[in-house]
Each structure stands twice: as C-alpha cells, then as structure tokens.
C-alpha cells in the first residue's frame, strides 16, 4: 500500500468506526435541507430571485447544504490532526516513512471522497424527494467545484489544527469561523436587499464564492462573470491556505 493510500485508509477506518463523525459529516447537512429547507420554504420564503431567476427556497438552499457538507467534512478531518496530537500519535506519524506532504495529500484525498459522497446524498435528496431541477450536464463541473473548495477549507482548518495547542481554542476558532462564514454569506439568503456592509463582507467571504459557484453549476443561477471572478479568488485562497498548511506541518515538532 502506498504512503498516501495508507493515510486515506487510516482516515477511512477512523471515520467509519465512529458513528459521531458520520452524523456530523453527512447527516447534519442533509437534515438542514430536509428540515430547515422545507420549513423555511413553506413558512417564510416560497421563492427567491437570484439574478432574475426565480428559485424555490429548497433549490436555493441545496448548493449551500453542499457547501456546509464540504466545510463539515474538512473541519472533522482537520480536527483529526488535533486528535492525533492529543493522543500522541501525531509525533509518531512524523517518524513513519511518509513525507509530511504525503500526510497532507492523503488526508485531503479522503476529504474529497467523503465530501463527494455527502454532496451526492444531498443532491439525491433534493432531486428525488424535493423535486429540485438541477443541470445534469454540469454535474462534472459541480463535482470539480466541490472537490476544489473542500480542499481549500481543509487546508485553512489544518493550519489551525496543527498550530493551536489547546482543544478548546481550536473548537472556539472553528465554531466561530463556521458561524460567521455561513451566516455572513449567500448560503441561506440572497445578498441583494441586505445592508451594504453585510453585502461587502459577504462578497469577500470564501463561503459566498463557493456557494455561488455551486449555485451556478447546479442551478444555472448567478452572473457568469461574477462566478468566474469568485472561482479565481477561491483558487488563490486555496493555494495560499495550502502553502500555509505545508509550512505549519513542516514546522510541527
């Protein structure tokens, strides 16, 4: 088994043997779509306009749920670094015949697989149970966006997981990030009509870029020029986070 393969297998065994991870990785985002999506759709917002296109709220929320899945998976995998430090295995891992980059790549590969499974479940629920119309021919593009953005989140969260020494500090940082990234973005509601400061903050939030990309590829909603600019920004964000994660891992000792 190759070094990267062994890292993927290790993460797979850790996840599959612990129901708690499966709950947070896969069930929580789908529950958002099934419960919050339907509830909000029927009670408050039966439809939204996104760049002139009318969408049911469940359809509007589906890309956001996929983005949440990517973020949750990335957060749990990054938390694995923390668990490794806590159990002492992290330093032992650094003596194994794999490079630190292989360790990072193995973890991100597993991340991408799990995120793709989570997205598939959300899409299946949306399409078959909620009758959301998606652009099937753009599904490969959607898969690409999911993978690229999951990697970006994982690299970002890994920087904290590797550098922060205390679990309470890590949990505080990630929980705060989760709240601000989700609610200060276009994940739950369109930005048009919100206060200017909110719109500007949301426009520099990578979660908005991710959700807008997914909304465009899945539903065809959004201005192509804006989505393209957001995609470019997310690529830069991912590369910067990758560089910082590698640096943090190289310095870990």
């Amino acid at each position, binding site marked *: *088994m190759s*070094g990267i*393969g*062994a*890292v993927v*297998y*290790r993460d797979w*065994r*850790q996840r599959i*043997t*612990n129901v708690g991870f499966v709950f947070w990785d896969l069930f929580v985002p789908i529950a958002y779509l099934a419960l919050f999506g339907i509830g909000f759709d029927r009670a408050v917002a039966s439809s939204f306009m996104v760049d002139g296109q009318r969408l049911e709220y469940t359809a509007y929320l589906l890309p956001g749920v996929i983005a949440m899945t990517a973020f949750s998976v990335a957060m749990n995998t990054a938390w694995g670094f923390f*668990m490794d430090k806590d*159990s*002492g*295995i992290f*330093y*032992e*891992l*650094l*003596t*194994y*015949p*794999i*490079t630190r980059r292989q360790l990072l790549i193995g973890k991100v590969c597993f991340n991408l697989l799990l995120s793709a499974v989570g997205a598939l479940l959300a899409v299946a629920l949306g399409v078959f149970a909620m009758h959301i119309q998606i652009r099937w021919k753009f599904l490969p593009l959607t898969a690409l966006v999911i993978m690229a953005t999951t990697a970006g989140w994982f690299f970002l969260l890994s920087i904290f997981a590797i550098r922060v020494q205390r679990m309470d500090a890590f949990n505080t940082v990630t929980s705060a990030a989760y709240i601000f990234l989700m609610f200060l973005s276009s994940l739950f509601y369109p930005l048009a009509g919100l206060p200017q400061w909110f719109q500007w903050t949301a426009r520099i939030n990578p979660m908005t870029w991710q959700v807008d990309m997914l909304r465009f590829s899945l539903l065809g909603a959004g201005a192509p020029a804006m989505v393209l600019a957001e995609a470019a920004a997310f690529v830069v964000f991912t590369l910067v986070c990758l560089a910082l994660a590698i640096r943090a891992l190289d310095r870990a*000792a």
Partner: protein
Amino acid sequence: MNAIEVDNLHKVYEPSNVAPKRAVDGLSFVVPAGSVFGLLGPNGAGKTTLVKILTTITPPTSGQARVAEHDVAREPIEVRRRIAVVLQQTAVESLLSVEDNLLIYAYLHGVGRGEARRRLRAVVEEFELGEQLRETVYDLSIGTKRRVQVAKIFMVDSPIIFMDEATTGMDPFMKRRVMDRIRSEARGGKTIFLTTQVLSEAEQLCDTILIIDRGRALASGTLEDLRRLSEQMFRVNLSFAELNESVIGRLRSLDPVELQVNGKSVEMLFRGTETSLLGELADIARGISITQFEIRGADLEEIFMALVKEKP
C-alpha cells in the same frame, strides 16, 4: 559499522518572549550496529529532544547526525525507512481497534496486506493482545495502550529501534517480556537506542551508555567503563552507639556526594580513595563507637546521581 553517528549536535529552542533554551549542547557519540545503547539523564536533560532529532521529528540547529548512514536533516525519509520508534508519550490511535492500530502501522511503513496480517498473528500472540484485538484502544488501560504501542514496532522489520522510556506504565511481567525481546532483537543484529530513567533496565540491557544532563554529555562508555568510575565512589552505611551533631559535622567535612541520617544510622555516597575514607572513619571511631559498618562500590544509579549532582 556504526548505526548512529552524532557529531557536535546542537538544538536551541527559541520560543517567542522566552529566553532561548539549549536542549542539546554539543553532543558527539556513536552507536555501533547491533548493540543496545542506553541514553540516561534526569528529566529535562535533553533525551527526548535528542530522540526527536535522530528520528527526524525535529531538525538540529547545528551539527550532524547520521542514522543508518543517512543524514537526519537531509535524508529524513531514508532514515525513517530504517527506524521504528516508541515515543515517551503514549502514542496510539485512540479511536481505532487494537487490530487497526497494528495493521495501519504496518501499512504506513509500506508492509503489504498479506504480510501485515501474517505479522499481526505473531505480534498479537507475543504481546497477549488476542482478547483486546477488536476493542477500541480508547477503552483500554494505560498499561495495555503502552503494550499496543510497543507491539506496533514489531509489525515492521526496521534495523534500528528507538525506545523512549518504552516500558513506562507496563506491568512487571510484560516489562520483562519486552526486555527479553529487546535482547533477542539485538542478538539478531538490530540496533536498539533506549532512553530510560530506570537504571537497572539500562544495566541489564545496554552495551554502551551515555549519561547526559542539560544537553551535555556527563559520561559515556560501556557498562564496565562506567563501573570504573565507581572504583572511586563508595556507598557507606554506618550505625553509631550515639549520634550527635558533632559527628554529623565531621562526616559532612569529608565532603560526601550524598549524606542521609536515619536515627543513629548514616548513609553516605563518598567519592575518593578507599584508604583515605577508612582513615577518616577510624579517626571518628576513636571518639564514638561505630556499631555497624558496611562499604561497597557504587552502582550505576549512584554514579548517575553523583554525576548529575556534581555538574555545575
């Protein structure tokens, strides 16, 4: 041939807002292949930092260290392919079963599935882990976790094994078994690098020993070399008919390395020649009756303690 070569090695930690700390300060030594090497030192002596450098976890600040003929800083992967490491801290995959812990360790060291399964059976039998094989490690006792940690290194066939206080927390029976296994591995040509604070363990296992403190070497050599140091060091037990401050004062004037008073008995660790010591004691005995007298050469623990205490 040497398995490990260390030349003028330094490691300085420079945390922000705190003065730099020299954890390793100019160490040089070699470990011959196929031997058991013991690294001794008190807490904070620099043992774990040295192990971290030799196992490529952290780079040295300066100097050179070669393990299995590969430079630890420049060729870390080549070094890692030739070592198995038991760190001081309990290092196990808490959320995985014992079986997964052992198999994944083997996979991460490039051992194939079939071979890993074959080794698993042997290791589980040797370390009596059959009953716990499917249990999550998180639920096991500290001693069993430690057993899993040590068992892992026998899932691979590395020529050099680092064990940083590996037997800590083990029951005496398992400790004995691990020590026997270490001896057997060394007889089979493997090199064992052992750090311990249990000096009897070092005496029983090690061919060569290095004693360090504050990152510097205090003494090194074979067990015989170190015992020669004890030729000038004696453990003396004395019982007096009456023991007063004046006698204790006279004993203190002999400048013992260590002096303990228990009722009418005194225990001293004394550095010097046997003749001069006996002369001094005979002089004291003229004034007060010594009811019991015992003298013997110092053991490794006493030499170790004396060296650590005497170093400024």
